[in-house]
């Protein structure tokens, strides 16, 4: 964690871990997160890290998830990104961000023109009812973001 005086710095979990802080310090921070979980799991910082703070378009991307998930431990998601998937215009990355799980970064897929279309399906955990974000990074650096809300009846443990 970067040290600053009289100033609160937002440090994402990933960059925090990268600094190689001691396990004890990490546990202390995890404890603090539990208390602050209702406020934020640091997803804003994760979005910032994934987008570099740049603007995201909401067109050309869809995130499909069930509106209600009875079991939060395994919730399917499908992200579709409009793209010709040619050598100079393709979907390079698709990332999933949770706004309420313990850990905001869920997964990132790295794609290429070999995929033919920009689409991915997998299964994620949802600890509670929340917004889920999908962020796509195009090969030219353009960013797209989709958001959907999933109501969770039974929480998916502690993803």
């Amino acid at each position, binding site marked *: 964690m970067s040290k600053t005086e009289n100033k609160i710095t937002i440090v994402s979990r990933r960059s925090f871990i990268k600094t190689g802080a001691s396990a004890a310090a990490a546990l202390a921070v*995890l404890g603090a997160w539990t208390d602050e979980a209702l406020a934020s799991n640091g997803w804003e910082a994760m979005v910032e890290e994934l987008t570099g703070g740049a603007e995201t378009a909401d067109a050309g991307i869809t995130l499909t998830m069930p509106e209600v998930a009875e079991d939060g*431990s*395994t*919730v399917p998601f499908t992200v579709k990104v409009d793209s010709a*998937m040619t050598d100079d215009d393709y979907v390079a990355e698709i990332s*999933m961000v*949770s706004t309420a*799980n*313990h*850990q905001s*970064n*869920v*997964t*990132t*897929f*790295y*794609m*290429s*023109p*070999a*995929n*033919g*279309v920009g*689409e*991915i*399906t*997998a*299964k*994620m*955990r949802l600890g509670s009812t929340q917004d889920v974000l999908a962020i796509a990074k195009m090969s030219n650096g353009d960013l797209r973001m989709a958001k959907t809300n999933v109501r969770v009846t039974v929480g*998916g*443990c*502690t*993803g």
Partner: protein
Amino acid sequence: MANKVRVKLPKSAKVGEIIFIKGTTKHPMVTGFGKNEDGSAQERNIARELVVTFNGAEILRQKIDTGISTNPFVNFPFKVPGPGAVEFTYKGDNGFEAYGKKDLKVEG
């Protein structure tokens, strides 16, 4: 490598066709945020990465964190360039490794 990845491909495909490839492996995906039955702190044990190759060239890579469900699953598109071998490799905490291979057959 004792752990297997189940790979599912269409029975056959045409060159230029976009097919969907599915893969899954068995993994408990322990997040490390909970506690064990005896109250001790859980240790994280998750798959960290998936790499899928076609005839040795990467066609999908996935970075995996704790939010991915038990027994990771993926379904992704692939534009068929011809026949070849689809290979999945998952790697994770505690030296976890799982591998699966299936041959893609092409018509005509």
